[in-house]
Protein backbone atom coordinates (compact mmCIF):
# COMPACT_ATOMS: atom_id res chain seq x y z
CA UNK A 1 0.00 0.00 0.00
CA UNK A 2 1.08 3.54 -0.55
CA UNK A 3 -0.22 7.05 -0.11
CA UNK A 4 2.34 8.17 -2.67
CA UNK A 5 1.24 8.69 -6.25
CA UNK A 6 2.22 6.10 -8.80
CA UNK A 7 0.77 5.41 -12.23
CA UNK A 8 -0.06 2.00 -13.69
CA UNK A 9 -1.08 0.91 -17.19
CA UNK A 10 -4.59 -0.45 -17.70
CA UNK A 11 -4.16 -4.17 -18.46
CA UNK A 12 -7.64 -4.78 -19.87
CA UNK A 13 -11.13 -3.30 -19.87
CA UNK A 14 -14.45 -5.09 -19.61
CA UNK A 15 -17.59 -3.33 -20.81
CA UNK A 16 -20.64 -4.45 -18.81
CA UNK A 17 -22.96 -2.39 -20.99
CA UNK A 18 -23.28 1.19 -22.20
CA UNK A 19 -21.39 3.45 -19.78
CA UNK A 20 -20.41 0.78 -17.25
CA UNK A 21 -16.87 -0.60 -17.38
CA UNK A 22 -14.38 -2.49 -15.24
CA UNK A 23 -10.69 -1.60 -15.46
CA UNK A 24 -8.01 -4.13 -14.57
CA UNK A 25 -4.55 -3.28 -13.26
CA UNK A 26 -1.66 -5.25 -11.82
CA UNK A 27 -2.32 -6.09 -8.19
CA UNK A 28 -0.23 -3.30 -6.66
CA UNK A 29 -1.86 -3.53 -3.23
CA UNK A 30 -4.10 -5.54 -0.95
CA UNK A 31 -7.47 -4.04 -0.14
CA UNK A 32 -10.21 -5.03 2.26
CA UNK A 33 -13.80 -5.04 1.03
CA UNK A 34 -15.12 -1.48 1.28
CA UNK A 35 -11.73 0.23 1.11
CA UNK A 36 -11.12 2.65 -1.74
CA UNK A 37 -8.32 3.94 -3.92
CA UNK A 38 -7.75 7.39 -5.41
CA UNK A 39 -7.65 7.26 -9.19
CA UNK A 40 -5.78 10.06 -10.99
CA UNK A 41 -6.31 10.91 -14.63
CA UNK A 42 -3.30 13.08 -15.49
CA UNK A 43 -4.41 16.51 -16.63
CA UNK A 44 -7.97 16.09 -15.36
CA UNK A 45 -8.71 15.18 -11.74
CA UNK A 46 -8.39 12.52 -9.03
CA UNK A 47 -11.40 10.72 -7.52
CA UNK A 48 -12.04 7.95 -4.99
CA UNK A 49 -13.32 4.55 -6.20
CA UNK A 50 -13.85 1.34 -4.31
CA UNK A 51 -12.00 -1.79 -5.35
CA UNK A 52 -14.55 -4.14 -6.93
CA UNK A 53 -12.41 -7.28 -7.12
CA UNK A 54 -8.94 -8.66 -6.51
CA UNK A 55 -7.41 -11.58 -8.36
CA UNK A 56 -4.10 -13.32 -7.74
CA UNK A 57 -2.31 -10.78 -9.91
CA UNK A 58 -4.91 -8.14 -10.75
CA UNK A 59 -7.01 -5.42 -9.17
CA UNK A 60 -10.34 -4.26 -10.59
CA UNK A 61 -12.17 -0.95 -10.38
CA UNK A 62 -15.67 -0.59 -11.80
CA UNK A 63 -16.96 2.76 -12.98
CA UNK A 64 -20.24 4.09 -14.33
CA UNK A 65 -20.27 7.09 -16.68
CA UNK A 66 -21.67 9.97 -14.67
CA UNK A 67 -19.63 13.20 -14.74
CA UNK A 68 -16.58 14.53 -16.62
CA UNK A 69 -14.15 12.23 -14.79
CA UNK A 70 -16.00 8.94 -15.24
CA UNK A 71 -16.80 9.83 -18.85
CA UNK A 72 -13.11 10.44 -19.48
CA UNK A 73 -12.42 7.02 -17.93
CA UNK A 74 -14.80 5.48 -20.51
CA UNK A 75 -12.53 6.74 -23.31
CA UNK A 76 -9.37 5.08 -21.95
CA UNK A 77 -7.74 2.15 -23.71
CA UNK A 78 -5.60 -0.71 -22.43
CA UNK A 79 -2.05 0.57 -21.96
CA UNK A 80 -3.15 4.06 -20.87
CA UNK A 81 -1.68 4.97 -17.48
CA UNK A 82 -3.68 6.22 -14.51
CA UNK A 83 -2.49 7.03 -11.00
CA UNK A 84 -3.65 4.75 -8.21
CA UNK A 85 -2.90 5.20 -4.53
CA UNK A 86 -4.32 3.63 -1.41
CA UNK A 87 -6.01 1.61 -0.14
CA UNK A 88 -7.71 4.18 2.06
CA UNK A 89 -10.32 3.97 4.77
CA UNK A 90 -12.00 1.40 6.90
CA UNK A 91 -13.74 -1.55 5.21
CA UNK A 92 -16.58 -3.95 6.01
CA UNK A 93 -16.44 -6.32 8.97
CA UNK A 94 -17.26 -9.95 8.11
CA UNK A 95 -20.43 -11.68 9.34
CA UNK A 96 -22.48 -14.83 8.71
CA UNK A 97 -26.09 -14.92 7.51
CA UNK A 98 -25.72 -11.51 5.93
CA UNK A 99 -27.78 -9.69 3.34
CA UNK A 100 -25.90 -7.60 0.78
CA UNK A 101 -28.06 -4.77 -0.54
CA UNK A 102 -26.64 -2.98 -3.58
CA UNK A 103 -28.06 -0.20 -5.68
CA UNK A 104 -26.63 0.74 -9.09
CA UNK A 105 -22.86 1.10 -9.28
CA UNK A 106 -22.95 0.63 -5.48
CA UNK A 107 -22.81 -3.04 -6.32
CA UNK A 108 -19.06 -2.61 -7.02
CA UNK A 109 -17.74 -2.62 -3.41
CA UNK A 110 -20.14 -5.46 -2.55
CA UNK A 111 -18.49 -7.60 -5.25
CA UNK A 112 -15.22 -7.70 -3.28
CA UNK A 113 -17.15 -8.29 -0.06
CA UNK A 114 -19.03 -11.21 -1.63
CA UNK A 115 -15.75 -12.67 -2.88
CA UNK A 116 -14.30 -12.46 0.61
CA UNK A 117 -17.39 -13.85 2.38
CA UNK A 118 -17.47 -16.78 -0.07
CA UNK A 119 -13.75 -17.44 0.49
CA UNK A 120 -14.46 -17.73 4.22
CA UNK A 121 -17.49 -19.99 3.64
CA UNK A 122 -19.84 -17.48 5.20
CA UNK A 123 -23.46 -17.72 4.18
CA UNK A 124 -24.98 -14.65 2.57
CA UNK A 125 -27.85 -13.53 0.37
CA UNK A 126 -27.69 -10.74 -2.22
CA UNK A 127 -30.38 -8.23 -3.09
CA UNK A 128 -29.26 -6.10 -6.00
CA UNK A 129 -31.08 -3.37 -7.85
CA UNK A 130 -30.29 -1.07 -10.76
CA UNK A 131 -32.00 1.12 -13.32
CA UNK A 132 -31.73 -1.49 -16.05
CA UNK A 133 -30.35 -4.98 -16.69
CA UNK A 134 -26.83 -4.09 -17.88
CA UNK A 135 -26.22 -2.00 -14.76
CA UNK A 136 -26.69 -5.09 -12.63
CA UNK A 137 -23.00 -5.82 -12.89
CA UNK A 138 -21.50 -9.02 -11.48
CA UNK A 139 -24.89 -10.77 -11.30
CA UNK A 140 -23.23 -14.07 -12.27
CA UNK A 141 -20.61 -13.80 -9.53
CA UNK A 142 -23.26 -13.14 -6.90
CA UNK A 143 -25.33 -16.07 -8.18
CA UNK A 144 -22.30 -18.31 -7.85
CA UNK A 145 -21.32 -17.23 -4.34
CA UNK A 146 -24.56 -16.31 -2.59
CA UNK A 147 -26.99 -18.85 -1.16
CA UNK A 148 -29.77 -16.73 -2.62
CA UNK A 149 -30.02 -13.84 -5.07
CA UNK A 150 -32.80 -11.32 -5.61
CA UNK A 151 -32.71 -8.74 -8.38
CA UNK A 152 -34.75 -5.65 -9.14
CA UNK A 153 -34.62 -3.19 -12.03
CA UNK A 154 -36.49 0.08 -12.37
CA UNK A 155 -37.62 -0.89 -15.87
CA UNK A 156 -38.27 -4.56 -15.18
CA UNK A 157 -35.63 -5.63 -17.74
CA UNK A 158 -34.15 -8.09 -15.22
CA UNK A 159 -35.56 -9.59 -12.00
CA UNK A 160 -38.50 -7.93 -10.37
CA UNK A 161 -39.62 -4.50 -11.54
CA UNK A 162 -39.15 -1.97 -8.76
CA UNK A 163 -36.60 -1.05 -6.10
CA UNK A 164 -34.56 -3.13 -3.63
CA UNK A 165 -36.37 -1.88 -0.55
CA UNK A 166 -39.80 -3.23 -1.56
CA UNK A 167 -39.42 -6.87 -0.45
CA UNK A 168 -36.60 -6.33 1.97
CA UNK A 169 -38.23 -7.28 5.25
CA UNK A 170 -39.76 -10.48 3.90
CA UNK A 171 -36.33 -11.55 2.59
CA UNK A 172 -34.74 -10.80 5.96
CA UNK A 173 -37.32 -12.95 7.66
CA UNK A 174 -37.42 -15.85 5.20
CA UNK A 175 -33.62 -16.02 4.86
CA UNK A 176 -32.81 -15.71 8.58
CA UNK A 177 -30.69 -12.58 8.02
CA UNK A 178 -28.68 -11.35 11.02
CA UNK A 179 -26.56 -8.61 9.43
CA UNK A 180 -27.05 -6.22 6.49
CA UNK A 181 -24.44 -4.56 4.27
CA UNK A 182 -25.53 -1.82 1.91
CA UNK A 183 -23.89 0.20 -0.85
CA UNK A 184 -25.55 2.56 -3.26
CA UNK A 185 -27.43 5.84 -3.29
CA UNK A 186 -27.64 7.50 0.11
CA UNK A 187 -31.40 7.91 -0.04
CA UNK A 188 -31.53 4.10 0.08
CA UNK A 189 -29.58 4.16 3.38
CA UNK A 190 -32.11 6.55 4.88
CA UNK A 191 -34.86 4.08 4.01
CA UNK A 192 -32.88 1.09 5.29
CA UNK A 193 -32.09 2.85 8.55
CA UNK A 194 -35.80 3.56 9.07
CA UNK A 195 -36.60 -0.10 8.48
CA UNK A 196 -33.76 -1.66 10.49
CA UNK A 197 -33.44 0.53 13.58
CA UNK A 198 -36.83 -0.40 15.09
CA UNK A 199 -36.11 -4.09 14.40
CA UNK A 200 -32.65 -3.91 15.95
CA UNK A 201 -30.95 -5.32 12.83
CA UNK A 202 -27.21 -4.45 12.75
CA UNK A 203 -25.81 -3.00 9.52
CA UNK A 204 -22.91 -1.36 7.73
CA UNK A 205 -23.32 1.19 4.93
CA UNK A 206 -20.58 2.57 2.72
CA UNK A 207 -20.77 6.33 2.18
CA UNK A 208 -19.44 8.60 -0.55
CA UNK A 209 -18.35 12.20 -0.16
CA UNK A 210 -16.32 14.70 -2.16
CA UNK A 211 -12.71 14.27 -1.05
CA UNK A 212 -9.50 16.15 -1.68
CA UNK A 213 -6.86 14.21 0.22
CA UNK A 214 -8.08 10.71 1.16
CA UNK A 215 -5.67 10.79 4.11
CA UNK A 216 -7.71 12.46 6.82
CA UNK A 217 -6.49 16.04 6.77
CA UNK A 218 -8.44 18.22 4.34
CA UNK A 219 -11.68 18.00 6.31
CA UNK A 220 -13.80 17.98 3.17
CA UNK A 221 -15.54 14.65 3.91
CA UNK A 222 -16.18 15.12 7.65
CA UNK A 223 -19.76 14.17 8.59
CA UNK A 224 -21.96 16.68 10.37
CA UNK A 225 -23.12 15.45 13.74
CA UNK A 226 -20.39 12.87 14.35
CA UNK A 227 -17.24 14.59 13.05
CA UNK A 228 -16.13 11.31 11.46
CA UNK A 229 -13.92 11.49 8.36
CA UNK A 230 -15.39 9.37 5.55
CA UNK A 231 -11.88 8.78 4.17
CA UNK A 232 -10.40 7.46 7.44
CA UNK A 233 -13.10 6.27 9.87
CA UNK A 234 -15.28 5.41 6.83
CA UNK A 235 -16.24 4.93 4.12
CA UNK A 236 -17.93 1.97 5.85
CA UNK A 237 -19.88 2.97 8.94
CA UNK A 238 -21.90 0.76 11.28
CA UNK A 239 -25.14 1.55 13.05
CA UNK A 240 -23.38 3.00 16.09
CA UNK A 241 -21.16 5.26 13.97
CA UNK A 242 -24.17 6.51 11.98
CA UNK A 243 -26.28 7.20 15.04
CA UNK A 244 -25.14 10.82 15.45
CA UNK A 245 -24.74 11.64 11.76
CA UNK A 246 -27.16 14.44 10.90
CA UNK A 247 -26.49 14.71 7.15
CA UNK A 248 -27.53 11.27 5.92
CA UNK A 249 -29.51 11.76 2.71
CA UNK A 250 -28.75 15.49 2.45
CA UNK A 251 -26.99 16.92 -0.62
CA UNK A 252 -23.23 16.50 -0.25
CA UNK A 253 -20.77 19.35 0.23
CA UNK A 254 -19.07 20.36 -3.03
CA UNK A 255 -15.41 21.25 -3.66
CA UNK A 256 -15.87 24.67 -2.04
CA UNK A 257 -17.34 23.03 1.07
CA UNK A 258 -20.81 24.41 0.42
CA UNK A 259 -23.78 22.10 0.80
CA UNK A 260 -25.75 22.41 -2.43
Amino acid at each position, binding site marked *: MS*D*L*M*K*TYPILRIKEHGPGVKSFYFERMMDALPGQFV*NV*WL*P*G*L*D*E*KPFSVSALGDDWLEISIKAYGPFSNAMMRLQPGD*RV*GIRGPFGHGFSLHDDALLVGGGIGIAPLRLLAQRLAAENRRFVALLGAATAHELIFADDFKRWASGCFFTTDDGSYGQKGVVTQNLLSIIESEGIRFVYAAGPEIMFVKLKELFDPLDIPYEFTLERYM*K*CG*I*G*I*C*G*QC*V*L*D*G*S*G*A*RVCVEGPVFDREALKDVTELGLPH*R*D*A*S*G*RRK
Partner: protein
Amino acid sequence: MPNATFLHMELAQPTVLASGILGLTAASMKRVIEAGAGAVTTKSFNTEGRKGHPNPSILPFRHGLLNAVGLSNPGVDEVVKEIRLFKKECQAPLFASIFGRTIEEYGEVTQKLVEAQPDLIEVNVSCPNVRSEFGTPFGDSPQDTARVTEIVKKYAGNIPVSVKLGPHGPGVGRMAKVCEEHGADAVTLINTVGPGMLIDIDVRKPILSNKTGGVSGPAILPIAVKSVYEAYEQVRIPIIGTGGVTTAEDAIQMILAGATLIGIGSGVYYQGIEIFRKIDRGIEAYLERYGFSTLDEIRGLAHE
Protein backbone atom coordinates in the same frame (compact mmCIF):
# COMPACT_ATOMS: atom_id res chain seq x y z
CA MET B 1 -1.51 19.17 31.18
CA PRO B 2 0.38 22.40 30.34
CA ASN B 3 -2.11 25.19 29.75
CA ALA B 4 -1.20 28.32 27.84
CA THR B 5 -2.01 31.98 28.14
CA PHE B 6 -2.26 33.62 24.74
CA LEU B 7 -3.31 37.26 24.51
CA HIS B 8 -6.48 37.45 26.63
CA MET B 9 -7.17 33.71 26.27
CA GLU B 10 -6.56 30.76 28.54
CA LEU B 11 -6.05 27.60 26.51
CA ALA B 12 -6.28 24.16 28.12
CA GLN B 13 -3.39 23.06 25.87
CA PRO B 14 -0.76 25.00 23.91
CA THR B 15 -1.60 23.32 20.59
CA VAL B 16 -3.81 24.88 17.94
CA LEU B 17 -5.17 23.24 14.81
CA ALA B 18 -3.48 25.02 11.89
CA SER B 19 -5.51 26.54 9.09
CA GLY B 20 -6.27 24.30 6.14
CA ILE B 21 -6.52 21.08 8.13
CA LEU B 22 -9.90 19.71 9.29
CA GLY B 23 -11.18 23.29 9.59
CA LEU B 24 -14.11 23.36 7.19
CA THR B 25 -17.01 22.59 9.53
CA ALA B 26 -18.07 22.93 13.16
CA ALA B 27 -18.36 19.14 13.48
CA SER B 28 -14.79 18.68 12.31
CA MET B 29 -13.31 21.37 14.56
CA LYS B 30 -15.30 20.16 17.54
CA ARG B 31 -13.80 16.72 17.05
CA VAL B 32 -10.29 18.23 17.04
CA ILE B 33 -10.98 19.99 20.34
CA GLU B 34 -12.24 16.70 21.78
CA ALA B 35 -9.00 15.12 20.55
CA GLY B 36 -7.06 17.55 22.77
CA ALA B 37 -6.28 20.70 20.78
CA GLY B 38 -6.25 23.94 22.79
CA ALA B 39 -7.81 25.92 19.94
CA VAL B 40 -8.77 25.52 16.30
CA THR B 41 -8.23 27.61 13.19
CA THR B 42 -10.73 27.53 10.34
CA LYS B 43 -9.74 26.90 6.77
CA SER B 44 -8.96 30.23 5.08
CA PHE B 45 -12.00 31.89 3.55
CA ASN B 46 -12.89 35.01 1.62
CA THR B 47 -16.12 36.84 0.80
CA GLU B 48 -17.55 34.80 -2.07
CA GLY B 49 -15.88 31.42 -1.62
CA ARG B 50 -13.82 29.43 -4.11
CA LYS B 51 -13.87 26.00 -5.65
CA GLY B 52 -10.09 25.67 -5.42
CA HIS B 53 -7.90 23.57 -7.70
CA PRO B 54 -8.89 20.13 -9.05
CA ASN B 55 -7.27 17.07 -7.49
CA PRO B 56 -4.62 15.87 -6.92
CA SER B 57 -4.36 18.80 -4.55
CA ILE B 58 -2.73 17.16 -1.52
CA LEU B 59 0.15 14.79 -2.08
CA PRO B 60 2.38 12.99 0.41
CA PHE B 61 6.03 12.49 -0.51
CA ARG B 62 8.79 10.87 1.50
CA HIS B 63 9.57 13.86 3.71
CA GLY B 64 6.36 15.84 3.83
CA LEU B 65 3.25 16.90 2.00
CA LEU B 66 2.85 19.01 -1.10
CA ASN B 67 -0.47 20.82 -1.45
CA ALA B 68 -2.23 23.21 -3.77
CA VAL B 69 -5.81 23.12 -2.53
CA GLY B 70 -6.17 26.63 -3.93
CA LEU B 71 -8.03 28.32 -1.06
CA SER B 72 -11.28 26.42 -1.63
CA ASN B 73 -13.93 27.66 0.78
CA PRO B 74 -17.70 28.17 0.92
CA GLY B 75 -17.50 31.93 1.52
CA VAL B 76 -17.78 34.03 4.68
CA ASP B 77 -21.57 33.66 5.11
CA GLU B 78 -21.34 29.86 5.33
CA VAL B 79 -18.27 30.03 7.58
CA VAL B 80 -20.07 32.40 9.96
CA LYS B 81 -22.77 29.73 10.36
CA GLU B 82 -20.19 27.05 11.13
CA ILE B 83 -18.39 29.31 13.63
CA ARG B 84 -21.68 29.99 15.43
CA LEU B 85 -22.41 26.28 15.53
CA PHE B 86 -18.95 25.58 16.95
CA LYS B 87 -19.27 28.29 19.59
CA LYS B 88 -22.61 26.89 20.70
CA GLU B 89 -20.99 23.55 21.52
CA CYS B 90 -17.35 24.32 22.37
CA GLN B 91 -15.70 26.61 24.90
CA ALA B 92 -12.25 26.42 23.30
CA PRO B 93 -11.08 29.43 21.26
CA LEU B 94 -11.68 29.49 17.51
CA PHE B 95 -9.38 31.40 15.18
CA ALA B 96 -10.85 32.48 11.85
CA SER B 97 -8.42 32.49 8.93
CA ILE B 98 -9.19 34.98 6.17
CA PHE B 99 -7.79 35.92 2.77
CA GLY B 100 -8.64 38.32 0.00
CA ARG B 101 -7.83 38.67 -3.65
CA THR B 102 -7.45 42.40 -3.01
CA ILE B 103 -6.47 44.36 0.08
CA GLU B 104 -10.02 45.73 0.22
CA GLU B 105 -11.45 42.21 0.29
CA TYR B 106 -9.62 41.56 3.60
CA GLY B 107 -11.61 44.47 5.01
CA GLU B 108 -14.91 43.22 3.57
CA VAL B 109 -14.51 39.69 4.88
CA THR B 110 -13.52 41.04 8.33
CA GLN B 111 -16.65 43.20 8.45
CA LYS B 112 -18.84 40.19 7.72
CA LEU B 113 -16.93 37.91 10.04
CA VAL B 114 -16.99 39.95 13.25
CA GLU B 115 -20.65 39.15 13.97
CA ALA B 116 -19.61 35.51 14.54
CA GLN B 117 -17.16 36.72 17.23
CA PRO B 118 -14.18 34.45 16.53
CA ASP B 119 -11.55 34.62 19.28
CA LEU B 120 -8.88 35.72 16.82
CA ILE B 121 -8.67 36.64 13.15
CA GLU B 122 -5.73 35.07 11.39
CA VAL B 123 -4.78 36.96 8.26
CA ASN B 124 -3.41 34.71 5.54
CA VAL B 125 -1.17 36.84 3.32
CA SER B 126 1.16 34.02 2.39
CA CYS B 127 -0.65 31.26 0.46
CA PRO B 128 1.83 30.16 -2.22
CA ASN B 129 -0.75 28.35 -4.37
CA VAL B 130 -2.75 31.06 -6.11
CA ARG B 131 0.05 33.03 -7.78
CA SER B 132 -1.26 32.42 -11.28
CA GLU B 133 -4.59 34.04 -10.32
CA PHE B 134 -3.68 36.42 -7.49
CA GLY B 135 -0.10 37.40 -8.36
CA THR B 136 2.65 37.69 -5.75
CA PRO B 137 1.33 37.11 -2.19
CA PHE B 138 0.82 40.31 -0.16
CA GLY B 139 3.07 38.74 2.46
CA ASP B 140 6.06 39.18 0.14
CA SER B 141 5.76 42.97 0.38
CA PRO B 142 6.16 44.95 3.63
CA GLN B 143 3.93 47.73 2.25
CA ASP B 144 1.09 45.39 1.26
CA THR B 145 1.33 43.42 4.50
CA ALA B 146 1.13 46.68 6.47
CA ARG B 147 -1.95 47.77 4.55
CA VAL B 148 -3.70 44.41 4.97
CA THR B 149 -2.92 44.40 8.70
CA GLU B 150 -4.30 47.92 9.09
CA ILE B 151 -7.52 47.27 7.21
CA VAL B 152 -8.27 44.08 9.16
CA LYS B 153 -7.50 45.82 12.46
CA LYS B 154 -9.76 48.69 11.43
CA TYR B 155 -12.80 46.41 11.17
CA ALA B 156 -11.88 43.73 13.73
CA GLY B 157 -12.99 45.81 16.74
CA ASN B 158 -11.91 44.11 19.93
CA ILE B 159 -11.07 40.81 18.19
CA PRO B 160 -7.29 40.28 18.16
CA VAL B 161 -5.50 39.83 14.82
CA SER B 162 -2.60 37.54 13.93
CA VAL B 163 -0.88 37.80 10.55
CA LYS B 164 0.27 34.53 9.01
CA LEU B 165 3.55 34.93 7.19
CA GLY B 166 5.60 32.69 4.95
CA PRO B 167 9.33 32.09 5.35
CA HIS B 168 10.05 33.92 2.09
CA GLY B 169 10.01 37.57 1.20
CA PRO B 170 12.25 40.17 2.73
CA GLY B 171 12.94 38.30 5.97
CA VAL B 172 10.46 36.89 8.43
CA GLY B 173 11.80 38.89 11.40
CA ARG B 174 11.45 42.16 9.57
CA MET B 175 7.99 41.23 8.28
CA ALA B 176 6.82 40.28 11.77
CA LYS B 177 8.04 43.69 12.94
CA VAL B 178 6.03 45.37 10.18
CA CYS B 179 2.92 43.52 11.35
CA GLU B 180 3.51 44.53 14.95
CA GLU B 181 4.07 48.16 14.01
CA HIS B 182 0.81 48.21 12.08
CA GLY B 183 -1.30 46.84 14.88
CA ALA B 184 -1.08 43.04 14.72
CA ASP B 185 -1.66 41.41 18.11
CA ALA B 186 0.26 38.25 17.13
CA VAL B 187 1.97 36.58 14.18
CA THR B 188 1.57 33.03 12.89
CA LEU B 189 4.80 31.58 11.50
CA ILE B 190 4.98 29.94 8.98
CA ASN B 191 2.79 29.08 6.02
CA THR B 192 3.79 26.28 3.65
CA VAL B 193 7.16 26.61 1.95
CA GLY B 194 8.08 26.82 -1.69
CA PRO B 195 6.16 26.33 -3.83
CA GLY B 196 7.54 22.98 -4.86
CA MET B 197 6.74 20.39 -7.50
CA LEU B 198 6.59 16.60 -7.86
CA ILE B 199 6.64 14.88 -11.25
CA ASP B 200 5.36 11.43 -12.12
CA ILE B 201 8.23 9.83 -14.00
CA ASP B 202 6.01 7.44 -15.99
CA VAL B 203 3.50 9.92 -17.41
CA ARG B 204 6.21 12.64 -17.19
CA LYS B 205 3.92 15.36 -15.88
CA PRO B 206 3.66 17.37 -12.64
CA ILE B 207 1.26 15.48 -10.35
CA LEU B 208 -0.56 18.37 -8.68
CA SER B 209 -3.26 19.78 -10.95
CA ASN B 210 -1.83 23.21 -10.09
CA LYS B 211 1.64 21.83 -10.97
CA THR B 212 3.18 23.58 -7.95
CA GLY B 213 2.20 23.54 -4.29
CA GLY B 214 3.31 24.50 -0.80
CA VAL B 215 5.54 22.11 1.13
CA SER B 216 4.55 21.17 4.69
CA GLY B 217 5.34 18.39 7.13
CA PRO B 218 8.65 17.23 8.66
CA ALA B 219 10.73 18.69 5.81
CA ILE B 220 9.97 22.27 6.85
CA LEU B 221 10.40 22.04 10.64
CA PRO B 222 13.91 23.60 10.65
CA ILE B 223 12.69 26.51 8.52
CA ALA B 224 9.74 27.07 10.86
CA VAL B 225 11.91 26.92 14.02
CA LYS B 226 14.39 29.38 12.52
CA SER B 227 11.57 31.72 11.48
CA VAL B 228 10.09 31.75 14.99
CA TYR B 229 13.57 32.26 16.46
CA GLU B 230 14.25 35.20 14.17
CA ALA B 231 10.87 36.86 14.76
CA TYR B 232 11.12 36.40 18.54
CA GLU B 233 14.17 38.66 18.52
CA GLN B 234 12.30 41.36 16.62
CA VAL B 235 8.81 41.54 18.16
CA ARG B 236 7.12 41.55 21.57
CA ILE B 237 3.75 40.22 20.32
CA PRO B 238 3.17 36.46 20.78
CA ILE B 239 3.99 33.98 18.03
CA ILE B 240 1.96 30.97 16.91
CA GLY B 241 4.72 28.61 15.74
CA THR B 242 3.50 26.39 12.90
CA GLY B 243 5.33 24.22 10.41
CA GLY B 244 6.38 20.60 10.40
CA VAL B 245 5.58 19.79 14.02
CA THR B 246 4.86 16.07 14.37
CA THR B 247 6.22 15.29 17.87
CA ALA B 248 6.44 16.87 21.32
CA GLU B 249 10.18 17.39 20.72
CA ASP B 250 9.36 19.45 17.63
CA ALA B 251 6.82 21.47 19.62
CA ILE B 252 9.34 22.09 22.42
CA GLN B 253 11.85 23.39 19.85
CA MET B 254 9.22 25.90 18.74
CA ILE B 255 8.64 27.07 22.32
CA LEU B 256 12.37 27.33 23.01
CA ALA B 257 12.62 29.43 19.82
CA GLY B 258 9.91 31.72 21.19
CA ALA B 259 6.46 30.40 20.22
CA THR B 260 3.52 30.84 22.60
CA LEU B 261 1.22 28.42 20.77
CA ILE B 262 2.08 25.49 18.53
CA GLY B 263 0.20 25.04 15.28
CA ILE B 264 -0.44 21.45 14.17
CA GLY B 265 -1.41 20.77 10.57
CA SER B 266 0.23 18.07 8.50
CA GLY B 267 1.14 16.39 11.79
CA VAL B 268 -2.41 15.01 11.81
CA TYR B 269 -1.42 12.92 8.78
CA TYR B 270 1.72 11.58 10.45
CA GLN B 271 0.35 10.92 13.94
CA GLY B 272 -3.41 10.80 13.48
CA ILE B 273 -5.86 13.01 15.26
CA GLU B 274 -4.30 11.76 18.53
CA ILE B 275 -1.31 14.04 17.85
CA PHE B 276 -2.70 16.82 20.05
CA ARG B 277 -2.82 14.66 23.15
CA LYS B 278 0.56 13.05 22.38
CA ILE B 279 2.27 16.42 22.09
CA ASP B 280 0.58 17.71 25.20
CA ARG B 281 1.76 14.74 27.26
CA GLY B 282 5.26 15.00 25.80
CA ILE B 283 5.55 18.68 26.70
CA GLU B 284 4.32 17.94 30.20
CA ALA B 285 6.92 15.19 30.63
CA TYR B 286 9.64 17.54 29.39
CA LEU B 287 8.68 20.28 31.86
CA GLU B 288 8.65 17.74 34.67
CA ARG B 289 12.01 16.22 33.70
CA TYR B 290 13.74 19.60 33.89
CA GLY B 291 11.81 20.95 36.85
CA PHE B 292 9.82 23.64 35.04
CA SER B 293 6.21 24.26 35.99
CA THR B 294 4.97 26.47 33.15
CA LEU B 295 5.59 26.97 29.46
CA ASP B 296 6.45 30.61 30.13
CA GLU B 297 9.62 29.45 31.88
CA ILE B 298 10.98 27.78 28.74
CA ARG B 299 9.73 30.18 26.08
CA GLY B 300 12.62 31.66 24.15
CA LEU B 301 15.24 29.87 26.25
CA ALA B 302 17.21 29.01 23.12
CA HIS B 303 18.08 32.71 22.87
CA GLU B 304 19.91 32.94 26.17
